């Protein structure tokens, strides 16, 4: 089928050699842990990177709008930092997902397509709606403040809650609820502080999720 590979441990080569039950238990535990790590699409380090990126991206936007009277929105540099940060995040996540899902097919592949379609719809709908708000004469505080800082998370949260509920996936459901809470919290914070609330909210969510993953791995 494929080129020959040397086994890392001769004792795992061929043959039907029996093993001590304690060694079997250890082998089972080690193999399972190793496989879980290799299939993990949300390793803790990725979540910590996400926390830093989103805190920087939204923190920079908040920094640039502090004290604006009237509110005009984040500066060009802040927008570049925000979109650049999100782009870096998307690239990093794509690389990790590709590596973890390499060779994995079946139902999970279909599930990934459903999530991808949902999130692409969110991004397109979010952008069009922002244009509609601008067209309808909404203030800069709404179009360039409350809306971009909070609504994407309401949209994305709704996707995760819906898919999580349909598929009975608790992590997706929890993530959706957390994203909606962040979106609502930042909406109430107003156009200036919405950026900060979102940045801190996402960073805390990522760090909490990473901590849970670390604890799960150790238990």
């Amino acid at each position, binding site marked *: 089928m494929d080129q020959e*590979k040397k086994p890392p441990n001769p004792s795992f080569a061929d043959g039907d050699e029996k093993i001590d039950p304690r060694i079997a238990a250890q082998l089972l535990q080690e193999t399972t842990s190793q496989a879980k790590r290799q299939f993990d699409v949300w390793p803790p380090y990725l979540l910590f990177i996400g926390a830093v990126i989103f805190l920087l991206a939204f923190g920079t936007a908040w920094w640039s709008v502090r004290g604006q009277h009237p509110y005009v929105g984040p500066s060009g540099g802040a927008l570049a930092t925000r979109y650049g940060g999100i782009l870096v995040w998307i690239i990093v996540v794509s690389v990790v997902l590709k590596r973890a899902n*390499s060779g994995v097919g*079946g139902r999970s592949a279909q599930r990934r397509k459903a999530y991808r379609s949902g999130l692409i719809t969110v991004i397109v709908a979010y952008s069009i709606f922002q244009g509609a708000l601008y067209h309808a004469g909404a203030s800069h505080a709404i179009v360039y403040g409350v809306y971009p800082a909070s609504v994407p998370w309401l949209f994305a949260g709704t996707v995760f809650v819906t898919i999580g509920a349909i598929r009975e996936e608790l992590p997706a459901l929890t993530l959706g609820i957390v994203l909606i809470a962040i979106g609502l919290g930042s909406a109430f914070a107003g156009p200036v502080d919405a950026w900060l609330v979102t940045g801190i909210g996402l960073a805390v969510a990522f760090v909490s999720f990473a901590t849970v993953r670390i604890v799960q791995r150790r238990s």
Partner: protein
Amino acid sequence: MTVGELNPLIHVPARLRIMATLSVLPDGDTLLFTRLQDMIGLSSGNLITHLRKLEDAKYIHTEKSGNGAASRTEVVLTPKGRQALNVYKAALRDLIDGL
């Protein structure tokens, strides 16, 4: 419970690792032969031999698609295989507890 009562098809290092690796995937998910080989670290000949034994017992199912260099083989743990692994794990625990 004695060592001899453990499922002999699973109680072999290579097959135990194959079953444990496949069991981490959710029900119905398949794994390409090449990725499984990377993870287990067996030669393709050895891996094919062990997979054949597991498939004969209906613990796994393999499906080959394409021809020649473009061919790909997907491996999936069957419900029977998952159940057999769970029974094996329980038996192993009992055995170790009794030692």
